[in-house]
């Protein structure tokens, strides 16, 4: 099981680095605030986006079929994948049937979720992630630590060292412009040599049968304009009904994600390049099961902007890897245990339930309430350890009996101040490791009130 608290404690142990990570993401949150504030109808936009998503999810199958018909009419080949394995097989088949061995990818969290890269690499395909952050973590053989800022856990010096080793940049060089230029040259070669380009999908439009990909680096355009074959991979929830709905989401996405008014590139793909092919792989991989779950289905509205991560005071201080799942942070803490409750059972508890995620979410997913609900789900499934459940049962028993509650309180207030510090602050007292216990008053409020009225 992923033990978030233990991983978070290890992250926090490097306090200067944790503060740097916190500040870097808080800076993005502030940029988001400024951009959101520049739109008078921001809250109305969020409501509109939430409504469009709720509507679409209520008729998901119809919109997916409409998309398929229109995409086929545009000359796009549509594939359906039940799970990650089928998705990977489909992508590999397209590559192998064309004798292709070099694939260039733009960012796709779906392919991370399906573990496409190792699958293809084991079959002799050279896979190049072309988003700069993703390329960095790929060269380090790491997964992304954030869905929008994959290498946010690294400092420029870390990247300088990596590029020195992998790309032959000067030792000790950490100037971002110099390093970016080196990456650019390196990626240009990969773009030129690629036989197939793969992209994710931000939005698939049922009405037009095309997909929209948002990037800041133009890497999706390089990766689809040069090779003759374009594969776009999407989860079923990426569908929106009409072209006119798109504007609602593009106005929200970049502002929420990075505090930009719009992504540098918002590319519409409505068919293959001349003489080439375009494929769309539509993946379920557990999503229809989530759709069937009344409590958690709203998590499928997520547009993967990452705003809930940037604003989450826990994420900023524990890092993406502490969650152990492709999508970390508040939304990941719902999606991961929906998939594997036993493995990801600590994630819904990796939150103070402060609600900042729910207020920042551009599609108004009630994230912190879903986390609250998920805790109950985990107790029902007995994923929460016996000791915790027993402790709460005892506490509940005491609190449900006023005489016992008063007695327990009186005893605690009498005993605690009389015990030696070595006992009250022993290892088992997690509260007292860094904090003092409250001073124990002699009398409770009830005692005082009784005295007053006597």
């Amino acid at each position: 099981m992923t033990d978030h608290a233990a991983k978070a404690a290890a992250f926090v142990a490097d306090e200067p680095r944790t503060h740097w990570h916190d500040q870097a993401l808080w800076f993005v949150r502030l940029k988001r605030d400024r951009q959101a504030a520049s739109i008078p109808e921001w809250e109305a936009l969020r409501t509109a986006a939430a409504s469009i998503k709720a509507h679409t999810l209520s008729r998901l199958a119809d919109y997916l079929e409409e998309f398929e018909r229109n995409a086929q009419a545009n000359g796009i080949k549509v594939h359906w994948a039940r799970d990650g394995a089928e998705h990977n097989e489909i992508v590999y088949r397209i590559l192998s049937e064309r004798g292709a061995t070099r694939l260039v990818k733009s960012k796709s969290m779906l392919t991370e979720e399906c573990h496409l890269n190792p699958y293809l690499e084991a079959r002799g395909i050279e896979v190049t992630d072309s988003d700069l952050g993703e390329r960095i973590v790929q060269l380090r053989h790491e997964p992304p630590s954030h869905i929008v800022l994959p290498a946010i856990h690294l400092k420029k010096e870390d990247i300088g060292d990596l590029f020195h080793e992998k790309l032959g940049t000067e030792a000790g060089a950490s100037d971002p412009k110099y390093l970016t230029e080196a990456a650019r040259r390196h990626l240009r070669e990969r773009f030129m040599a690629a036989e197939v380009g793969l992209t994710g999908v931000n939005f698939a439009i049922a009405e037009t049968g095309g997909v929209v990909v948002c990037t800041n680096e133009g890497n999706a355009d390089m990766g689809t304009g040069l090779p003759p074959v374009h594969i776009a991979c999407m989860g079923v929830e990426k569908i929106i009904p009409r072209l006119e709905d798109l504007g609602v989401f593009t106005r929200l996405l970049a502002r929420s994600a990075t505090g930009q008014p719009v992504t540098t590139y918002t590319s519409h793909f409505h068919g293959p390049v001349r003489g080439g092919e375009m494929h769309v792989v539509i993946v379920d991989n557990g999503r229809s099961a989530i759709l069937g779950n009344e409590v958690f289905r709203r998590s499928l509205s997520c547009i993967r902007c990452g705003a809930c991560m940037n604003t989450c005071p826990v994420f900023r201080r524990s890092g993406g890897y502490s969650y152990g799942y492709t999508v970390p942070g508040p939304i990941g803490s719902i999606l991961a245990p929906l998939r594997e409750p036993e493995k990801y059972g600590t994630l819904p508890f990796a939150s103070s339930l402060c609600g900042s995620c729910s207020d920042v979410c551009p599609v108004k997913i009630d994230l912190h309430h879903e986390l609250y609900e998920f805790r109950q789900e985990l107790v029902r499934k007995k994923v929460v350890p016996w000791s915790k459940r027993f402790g709460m049962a005892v506490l509940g028993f005491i609190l449900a009996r006023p005489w016992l509650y008063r007695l327990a309180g009186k005893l605690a207030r009498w005993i605690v101040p009389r015990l030696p510090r070595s006992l009250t602050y022993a290892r088992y007292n997690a509260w007292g490791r860094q904090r003092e216990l409250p001073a124990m008053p002699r009398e409770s409020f009830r005692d005082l009130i009784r005295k007053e009225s006597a």
Partner: protein
Amino acid sequence: MPKVGLFVPCYIDQLYPQVGIATLRVLRQLGLDVDYPEEQTCCGQPMANSGCAEDARPLAERFLNVFGRYDYVVAPSGSCVSMVRNHYAQWLKGKPGFDRLRVNTFELCEYLVEIAHVASVDGDFPRRVGLLMSCHGLRELRLARSSERMDAPFNKVRQLLAQLRGIELVEVTRPDECCGFGGTFAVNEEAVSCMMGRDRIADFESAKAEVIAGYDMSCLMHLDGLIRRARKPLKVLHVAEILQGAKLA
């Protein structure tokens, strides 16, 4: 004259009785008929937040039995009131009196502004005060506009305190970041919780606050624990303790 039931959350009853007394003084000062029903214990939030819904159920039922008879229920805690308003339906939906209880249970500041219509606060508090906008009061009761939202700003707590003579409400860089208490989170995720708390304290210190004031003693207990361990001169106070000497009208 409406009858007000005073709800004193368990940890305030046991650990911060002076906050309960201050709340009672504030309400009585308004001339209200306030009653403290002695059979009350806890709202059930520790169990509910841990996912142990069935252990919380009897406490929700008890709360309805104890407080169902009042016109209003007032508590010096945003978090416990949010429990009643936003989470009790799971156990009490459809029970006689619940709908009425749900909409008539208020956090103290909220009650003063929305129901008692307190327009003037006449009193002194010549200190530099940093406001801790605890999360459940902020984002679940909407005591103020949260910094994430883009609608018109307001703050019912600040609105009351700002009227005190001599008070200086300091501006911090992150006006409503969570302090890291979070109930059982404070011990389950001790490392992150304490860092969150220290970061909040540092923010208040940079703004030269002398007092951290809030409407949730639980968050303040966490910050106070860190402050006392570090032997810092900062003090924490509940809003009721600051308002108890003032004349509200």
